[in-house]
């Protein structure tokens, strides 16, 4: 139900933004479906998520001015909204990535010390 999926998004929220930005930086402009496919590729196969849950993250990032969407045609001649990373987005990605690395390092260290 609604409340279940929301909880999972919250769990992923910080990482999801980071992953989306990173994917757009390396792959160039992508539509939501393309991003979802990329996400499924990266993530463990056991971790499946509804592709719809991408949308709040896209709105959030677009409202912050880190990505920008525009309507284009796909290779299969379907219309789709392509999102590209902006300059502010790249700066944010660097900062977020750094923060994540540090956080991940800290958590790693803590986990090691605990055991």
């Amino acid at each position, binding site marked *: 139900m609604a409340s279940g999926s929301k909880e999972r998004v919250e769990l992923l929220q910080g990482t999801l933004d980071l992953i989306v930005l990173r994917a757009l930086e390396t792959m160039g402009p992508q539509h939501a479906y393309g991003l979802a496919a990329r996400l499924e590729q990266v993530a463990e196969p056991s971790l499946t998520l509804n*592709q719809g849950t991408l949308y709040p993250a896209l709105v959030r990032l677009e409202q912050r001015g880190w990505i920008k969407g525009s309507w284009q045609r796909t290779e299969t001649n379907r219309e789709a*909204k392509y999102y590209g990373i902006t300059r502010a987005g790249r700066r944010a990605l660097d900062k977020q990535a750094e923060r994540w690395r540090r956080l991940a390092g800290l958590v790693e260290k803590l986990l090691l010390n605990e055991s």
Partner: protein
Amino acid sequence: MSALRRFLLRLHNFLRPGRTEPDLAREVASHLALLEDEFIRRGMTPEEARLAARRAFGGVEQTKELHRDARSFGWLDDARRDLRLAVRTLRRAPGFTAAIVLTLALGVGANTAMFSVISGVVLKPLGYPDADRIVVVLNRWTDTGQTQPNLAGGDEIDIRARRGTFDAFAYYQGGEVGVRIADRAEFTGTVFVHPDFFRVFGVPPAAGRLFNRDDAQRSAIVSLGFAERNFRSAAGALEQPLSIGSRPYEIVGVMPVAMRFPARTEVWAAAPVEPNNRNRGGHNYLAVGRLAPGVSLEAANADLSALAIQLARSFPDTNLRKTFVAVPLRDNLVSRVRATLFVMMGAVALVLLIACANVANLILARASGRSRELAVRAALGAGRRHVVSQLLAESLVLALVGGAVGLLFARVGLETLLRFGSRYVPLPRLDDVQTDGRVLLFTAAVSVLTAVAFGLVPARQASRGDVSAALNQSGARGTLGAGSSRIRNGLVVVQIALSFILAINAGLLFRSFAALTDTPLGFRTQGILVAYANAPARGSIFDQSGLDDYLRVGQLFADVFARLGQIPGVISAGGAMGLPTGQYDSNGSYAVEGKQTFGGDFHRLPSAGFRLASPGYFRTMAIPVLRGREFDDGDRYERPFVAVISESLARESFGAGDPIGHRIMCGFDSDKWMTIVGVVGDVRQASPASPPGPQLYMPLRQHPYAATNVQMVMRTSVAPESLIGAVRQTVRSMRPDVAMKFTTMEASVNDSIAAPRFRMTLVSTFATLALMLAVAGMYAVMSYVTAQRTSEFGLRVALGAKAADVVRLVLRGAARLVAVGVALGLALALATSRIVTNMLFGITPMDTQAYAGALLLALPLTFLAAIVPAIRAARVDPMIALREQ
């Protein structure tokens, strides 16, 4: 930066929705199409691919919802949707909406009006700088515990000398007297104040200056209104002369409207620095003070007690049982009306409770009727939260609209209350009453609280319902759940009980008021014209100066009474100082020759009211002379002093013996023995509520210093008011500088019982409102219940029941509710009867007639509310009723 940008965009999306929604739909559609393409590529049939795409994507609506939450403020969007839906729903049920809005508006309106009065009169600080530092100092008798506002002159001087306790301290005395400007004389609220008086209040003058020590008995300060009325402007009044009594004063200052103490004062005249009468036995002076910085009220009172103990030791004759108490000025001003106002507040609070119960009942009835609608909403995916918030939104809209209309009602009600109130009741601080911010807040709180209170019950009940059960139910109507009908019945019972309490109290106050108006007063009230007159005389009783001038005034009034008696339409005329229900009153101790000596400890002496009267006064007022004679023209200053006593005084001091010929002395103004020449009937002096007590009458002309202020009475054979012009002209022709004002004895007596009339009218109004609401509530519930049971009644009729049987069935249910409600109301009224006890006159709080009256009023009304729906139910055509099934 980016966070702010995001907030602004969200705000923008909230304020300007609509553009992003279609865009999102397009994006989702394209996403699904791409997914389908992918699945078809993997070898699925188009149909399978469509379903698989949906599954992979997840809930489309949920996604949109999440998207909305992220791009805007979800809860705000929800609230807006709920409110819009609520307004639309309510507009579709105009009767229901109007009933609720009106009910709420009545409750909220009455409360706001009443609370405005309480806020202005009791709660709001006085408008002076550091007003909570201003106190009045009262005289308290330690043996009886009674407090009186007047201090003795000698005591006042000693209290004023406590510089450590009081920053400023001032005595004052006065009332309405004749003030003369140029050739005009007018009755004007005038007080004689110690020069420090304005330092106590800290109000700067609007023009001119405040008093200093040199101003005593020479300077006056007037109100802005007085200055503008008589001299066109504040500046124009400065240095102008006016005279009070016969003493000339010069206006040195003008006070702004903020200075309004004592109430209705227009002239403050500088009194001597030390009071004229410095003995400690006569209590003639009122006093106010400003506490010195850092001195608490408790500290001030401790200091006053210490002083009192000291004085008791030094002056045991006069001060043995005396102490002084400082009371905050505001508390002192409102002490007399506080209880009345809070009882009134209780009454309107009951009205509000009844109104809320009514509203709750209406909503509850509607909610049960809507259970199918809500079930459909739930089936279509509305969560429990949504149903509840939608119902709450409806309540909120109703409460806000009801509150707004109520505020409108409050405005009108307050205006009526003030007009009515200021005319009949001398409520203090009425100028401070207005619908202020605090009152608005109170109204808002009351209506929102009401909304939550009555909105939640049906909301919870409706949302708890089992969707499929409600949907499967046959027929358009919901079932009558046992729980909801219990709540509804409970609400009706509460309404009946509460309104019954109000009806009983209204009955008590009504009976009490009737007792007041029926009480024999001991004097005539019909056909008597009253003229307050004030003639100037030069000199003062304190140095016995100007006696000749005062004696001339005595002669003048004697001549005036004779001339007034000749005016066509006047049967007889006379005058008094201390007319019953009038503005002047005096009392004190007396001694009977051979029984007591006058002086020493006054507390051992009997006391009486002191009055002055002219020849013809008792005849005009129809106060019966029981023994001896009334005063005549021979009772003059140079002749032996005489007195007339009332029946009560004769009984108290002479028992069954004959008082005529005995001599009596009192502390009024002279220490001469007076021979008792007559006994007259008792009167109720202050109002019909005051018990007939001992009175000592003395001839006007033997007490010249007190006889410049006279209340002239004329018994007329025509309408008393019609003679005002003739009387004024007659007096003016004899002496133009006599100040006069007119009333009738009837009006004067009516004014004296204005407060109980005000209370009775108000409580009766509230009781009527409450009964109407309760009856409406009863009617609504009975209508609803009978409508729910239409098919049952149809079946009964089809099976042979008579119409009367159906009516009886419905009425039996109603009777049970009424019986429980009335019993509950009766019990509560008895339990709380203590509250109104001291507002009652002549009846006990258990007065059976009041209870019977309330019952006789409430029962037929509730019966009426039940019989109409009952008859409607009995008339139902069984075929139609059964087809509805």
